[in-house]
């Protein structure tokens, strides 16, 4: 099982392998036509190697290190293991036309991984070719005398999955095929120029005069041919490479300790089987009993804190098809243990009626016999803390609960001599009640402890009250707060202006093991209706914003999207739902449980060729867009900050081919607009108007991969405003001249859209170039403000970059009605005049967000910092590191800081999720002194 099962049925033919790790004589008939090899005549094969046990042991191939083999006999490439091919081999390499083919499994993305290489890359001296990868993208690089030219796959490869690679050169272009599908092509001409200095010909590493990059993984075969594949041969490879076809991609949702639900929808009917286990050897096999396309399998008896692998197979007319091996981590399963309710406790039933059936926190003030407390635990998933003033009773009940295995896990009893004031932070309880007939504290104390946004207080007489949201709190439902992208929701944070004005509300999971690595430029967390949604490494976790209780967790292999500054987030939320873009679908998940309610599809013409791009919601409308397959950014390993000044790959935006409106009432599409190429980070939605920048260059529309550097993109740009309910154009205007960039010089590093109540603000980061076209390192933020009523240009203005690194020059604006901040200053609205002050210090890569009284950012000592509007001064939280884009939200009346910095191996970071509550709302008595200082 170590190797893909898809290859298993061809094992017989592979056992007939010749010991052909040598160059074929031109007339030798090949004894082996591998499954994914091109079915060429024998004379086309120049060389073939199979780095396996037999070839290593018979010295046909010589391993550099003591060889280790997997269960299929493949040489394990790890540490420094690599194979040096005989020097004569390189002399026979074709110059004008050839193909190099390899079947590989890369276990670890890295910089400059070499699968087969005969090359030198020494400054300006670049020679030869390399079939390999950089980060998690396969690439084929080749020199015809100048620098190495690269054809790189835009899509990331999945570590641990076998792939068929084919690099070709025909004298005119370099092409890379992944699993028989053209992944990248670029022009080149002339014969290949090989190194004229001693150069090793290597399998399993890139190695030249002074560089050595060995890989981690397997290479089962390498062949070099002096002919190119036919379309039929490529189609055959693609067909054989195809795995399971999904109509809804798989996801694992945790149900209880040791138990998870795996679900997916197949594209075709047929028997489905899942193999899974704690190693890549899988082990357990479970068959779906579903007779339709929808499959739901319960995985039970899962070990805790274990990374499981699984693979789905399905029967087709052509035989079994297999998915890649996916993973889920039970270390992310924080679901509470369910209890068996002994009897239906009427009071508990009443108290819990209509309360969302989800984990949460309940507070009981004053015990009687403990039966209500126990029943509440049994009839719900709430964690219950009961306070009582009778030590004897508390100890007796504790022992009873302990013997039943409940104390400390689902129920905790706390002795408190005086119940009038509970020493618990405010706004915690999803349910707050008493077991007693007389309330042992003022009703206001129960109300204080009750969580806003629907938390329930039950008084002894049965009176039930539901707590409203905290006044002055804001909903962070989209990447930058509201769908208008202002990074400010109106959140007042109780008037807080400094870090000391906020107290810890909760602290805990998820921790550093949840994320990707500093959550690099990925989608921000969201907060809505008392819930906090957070994305990690191909996973979602939803927490109660007020008590940190994890409500549900889901592992979704196809979730990841990064480089949001040049794209848009892959999710948004409202009071009830979480909307998540997964491949070509929008998943609508129940916000409280994670259950998938429905899926929305792209427009019919884009379903096979596009993926879901932009996502937003407002009122009864959901907005989505189509981006071309492979256009989205997924790379996070290595240099993946996407902010290198002027570099094409770091100025490239993801573009949508169309944008559509859907109705929440029936989840059906209402309208679709598609003309040019919509620049995703500029799409903004507010009060029924949808604004964006659109490139109407027809040539680019026909020729783009869906991701374009601004030098190609910035022609025929229009500002467009649609009616979000109908899709009709309200106004459209050619975009005015940019302030620094021209057609001859400069570039646009990022472009953002945001809306106030009056206008559509386009903020561009424009970089300068010198006469040679190289970035000077200087640049500006330019602001272009359009009247929302008719698209008229209100003003254009600019401020200078503070720095050109660590995200300073890609700062997303914080937009208030009367001012805009980028970095280190901004402009006033509506006149566009530069502000008379700066904020900061801002350090590190994170974005900046606003509250009514200040800015929150990564600042002092690269820690989370609160900069006060009034005092123009920063205060900070030492050793609290946010992510490298946006992982902190002022929302719900809280300052929510889910973990985002894990992976940053320097610094003594706290690596935890937490939330702050304004001191005034925390239940901590406010001293006269602090009240006075407020005034």
């Amino acid at each position: 099982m170590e190797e893909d099962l898809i290859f298993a049925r061809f094992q017989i033919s592979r056992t007939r392998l010749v010991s052909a790790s040598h160059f074929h004589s031109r007339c030798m008939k090949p004894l082996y036509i591998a499954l994914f090899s091109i079915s060429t005549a024998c004379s086309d094969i120049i060389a073939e190697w199979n780095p396996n046990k037999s070839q290593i042991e018979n010295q046909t191939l010589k391993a550099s290190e003591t060889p280790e083999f997997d269960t299929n006999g493949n040489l394990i490439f790890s540490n420094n293991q690599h194979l040096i091919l005989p020097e004569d081999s390189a002399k026979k390499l074709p110059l004008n036309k050839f193909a190099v083919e390899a079947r590989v499994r890369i276990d670890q993305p890295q910089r400059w991984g070499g699968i087969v290489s005969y090359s030198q890359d020494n400054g300006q001296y670049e020679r030869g070719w390399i079939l390999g990868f950089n980060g998690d993208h396969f690439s084929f690089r080749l020199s015809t005398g100048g620098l190495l030219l690269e054809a790189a796959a835009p899509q990331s490869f999945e570590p641990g999955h076998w792939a068929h690679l084919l690099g070709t050169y025909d004298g005119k272009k370099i092409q890379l095929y992944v699993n028989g599908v053209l992944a990248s092509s670029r022009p080149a001409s002339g014969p290949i120029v090989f190194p004229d200095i001693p150069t090793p010909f290597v399998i399993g590493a890139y190695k030249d005069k002074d560089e050595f990059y060995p890989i981690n993984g397997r290479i089962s075969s390498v062949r070099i041919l002096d002919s190119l594949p036919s379309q039929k041969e490529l189609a055959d490879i693609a067909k054989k490479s195809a795995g399971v076809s999904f109509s809804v991609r798989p996801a694992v949702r945790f149900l209880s300790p040791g138990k998870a639900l795996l679900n997916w929808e197949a594209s075709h009917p047929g028997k489905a089987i899942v193999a899974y286990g704690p190693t890549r050897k899988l082990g357990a096999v479970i068959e779906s009993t579903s007779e339709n396309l929808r499959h739901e399998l319960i995985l039970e008896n899962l070990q805790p804190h274990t990374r499981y692998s699984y693979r789905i197979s399905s029967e087709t007319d052509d035989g079994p098809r297999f998915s890649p091996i996916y993973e889920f981590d039970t270390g992310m399963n924080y679901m509470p243990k369910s209890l068996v309710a002994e009897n239906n406790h009427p009071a508990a039933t009443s108290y819990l009626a209509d309360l969302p059936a989800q984990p949460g926190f309940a507070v009981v003030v004053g015990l009687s016999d403990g039966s209500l407390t126990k029943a509440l635990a049994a009839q719900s998933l709430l964690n219950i803390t009961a306070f009582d003033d009778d030590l004897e009773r508390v100890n007796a009940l504790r022992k009873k609960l302990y013997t039943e295995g409940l104390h400390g896990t689902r129920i905790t009893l706390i002795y408190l001599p005086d119940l009038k004031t509970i020493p618990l932070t405010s706004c915690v309880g999803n349910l707050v009640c008493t077991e007693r007939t007389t309330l042992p504290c003022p009703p206001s104390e129960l109300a204080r402890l009750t969580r806003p946004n629907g938390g329930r207080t039950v008084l002894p007489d049965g009176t039930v009250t539901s707590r409203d949201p905290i006044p002055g709190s804001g909903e962070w439902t989209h990447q930058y707060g509201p769908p208008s992208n202002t990074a400010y929701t109106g959140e007042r944070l109780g008037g807080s202006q400094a870090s000391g004005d906020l107290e810890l509300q909760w602290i805990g999971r998820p921790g550093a093991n949840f994320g990707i690595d500093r959550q690099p430029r990925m989608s921000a967390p969201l907060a809505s209706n008392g819930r906090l949604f957070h994305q990690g490494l191909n996973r979602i976790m939803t927490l109660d914003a007020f008590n940190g209780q994890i409500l549900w967790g889901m592992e979704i292999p196809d979730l990841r999207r990064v480089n949001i500054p040049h794209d848009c987030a892959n999710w948004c939320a409202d009071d009830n739902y979480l909307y998540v873009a997964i491949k070509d679908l929008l998943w609508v998940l129940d916000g409280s449980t994670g259950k998938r309610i429905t899926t929305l599809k792209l427009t019919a013409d884009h379903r096979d060729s596009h993926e879901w791009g932009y996502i937003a919601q407002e009122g009864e409308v959901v907005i989505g867009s189509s981006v071309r397959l492979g256009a989205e950014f997924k790379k996070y390993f290595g240099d993946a900050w996407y902010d290198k000044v002027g570099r094409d790959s770091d100025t490239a935006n993801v573009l949508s081919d169309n944008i559509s409106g859907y109705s929440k009432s029936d989840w059906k599409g209402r309208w679709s607009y598609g003309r040019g190429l919509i620049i995703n980070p500029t799409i903004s939605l507010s009060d029924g108007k949808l604004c964006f920048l659109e490139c109407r260059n027809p040539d680019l529309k026909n020729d783009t991969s869906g991701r374009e550097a601004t030098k190609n993109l910035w022609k025929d740009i229009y500002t467009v405003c649609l009616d979000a309910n109908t899709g009709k154009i309200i106004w459209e205007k050619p975009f005015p001249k940019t302030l620094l960039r021209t057609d001859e010089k400069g570039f646009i590093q990022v472009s953002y859209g945001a809306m106030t109540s009056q206008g559509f603000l386009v903020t561009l980061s424009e970089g300068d170039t010198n006469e040679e076209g190289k970035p000077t390192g200087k640049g500006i933020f330019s602001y272009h403000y359009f009247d929302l009523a008719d698209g008229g240009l209100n003003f254009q203005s600019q401020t200078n970059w503070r720095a050109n690194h660590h995200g300073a020059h890609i700062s997303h604006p914080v937009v208030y009605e009367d001012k805009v901040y980028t970095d280190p200053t901004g402009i006033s609205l509506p006149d566009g005049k530069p502000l008379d002050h700066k904020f900061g210090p801002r350090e590190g890569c994170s974005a900046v967000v606003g509250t009514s009284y200040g800015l929150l950012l990564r600042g002092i000592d690269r820690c989370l910092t609160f900069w006060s509007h009034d005092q123009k001064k920063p205060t900070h939280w030492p050793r609290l590191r946010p992510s490298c884009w946006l992982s902190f939200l002022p929302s719900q009346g809280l300052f929510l800081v889910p973990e985002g910095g894990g992976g940053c191996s320097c610094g003594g970071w706290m690596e935890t999720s937490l939330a702050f509550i304004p001191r005034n709302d925390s239940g901590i008595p406010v001293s006269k002194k602090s009240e006075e200082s407020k005034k």
Partner: protein
Amino acid sequence: MHSTLILLVLCAVASATPWPTYRHDNRRSGVSSDTLALPLAEAWTHDGGAPQQAWTGPAKWDAYSSNEGLQSMRNFDPCHFTTANHGLIYFGSSADNAVHCLDAKTGEEKWLHFTNSSVRFPPTLEGDKAWFGSDDGFVYCANAHTGKPLWKKRAAPSDRLIPSNGKLISPWPVRTGVTVENGRAWFAASLVPWKTSYLWCIDSHSSEVAYVTEHKEVTLQGAMLAGGDRLYIPQGRAAPIALDQENGKLTGQIGQAGGVFCLLTEDNQLIAGPPSQKERDEQIRIADTTSGKRLTTFNNTNRVVVTKGKAFLHSNDKLQCLDLVRKGKLEATIASEQAALKKLDPKIEAQLPEIEKLKKSISQSRADLDGCLLWQIDHATPVELIIAGDQLIAGLNNEVIIFEASTGKQLWKAPVKGKAYGLTPAEGRLIVSTDLGHIHTFAPKP
């Protein structure tokens, strides 16, 4: 018959040593003087419930630096560690918030004492007293034999509670354990560096407060150590701090150290790790607590135990025993000769003989370092190593193994459920705590 009796008596005497605090003593040496009588057989197992750790594991990788396998630096509570004395075994529970006392012979629960939140270190036993701290921000003292509460002190500056991982904790939990020495008991209340942390010292007899000191921008977590006139408190991802026992004042940070695995040698060298997540392998370093300088680095190592001038550790798939004294001397020689070499100028002809001499000497010393390896055997990576007399005991995944310390010869092994993070050889028994919450007790076969 007579000689057998004598032997039994000797064994009984030899195996009377208690394990009164986390990792045996306040230097957290993990060394007990008593050799266990083998073979052992499992006497009983107690299911303490799955530990609820304070922090999650580390990030999967530092992807930017292509640095995988980041080390956990705050893994101070992976199991229910135990202490033992007078035929009783104690543990604090992060699961059920209680301190438990079990009969060492039968596993029967003698008493339990609830706190309001997780207890992350076992009670420290001093005379008839059992001392322990809790995430509820309090420190407790109970009668070690009966569990009767004797004393309770709020170490946190307020009684405020906040949610954390499904429980309520104080914003100033006590996660250092309680260190008792020379009639004084120390503990700290601390969580986040933007809040002041508190170090307490009390008279362990009268329970009166000797002093309390405030410390800014620290997170005090992990078992406190005491040695010489200093206290040392780990901080996880930041360097441990050193404090004056007499007044609780900060004397400095041990910059070469980090993590929560810390032990103090008899000559007050701090062995700790991992120092940071930047290193691509797991490291444990020995630092001079006076100068703060690094003395030695053990690469690819997660645990070290030191006794009688020998260091036992696991590195590169091998369990090893090193002559630490000789290694230290050689490394000191190399360091001083390298320093001397730096001062010389190869362009000055007169200095060339001295340069050559030093180079030769350094080369020889480096070669001699190989001779510091006393034995090594191929072995899986343990999660804990301790010494019991002449035995080296290794805790592994689902297994515990006893080796002859002088040779590395395997003497005994037994299966356990889970990773054996906690090893307590005490009073002739071996108590093994695992990450699944199990406490296995092995006793000599009757």
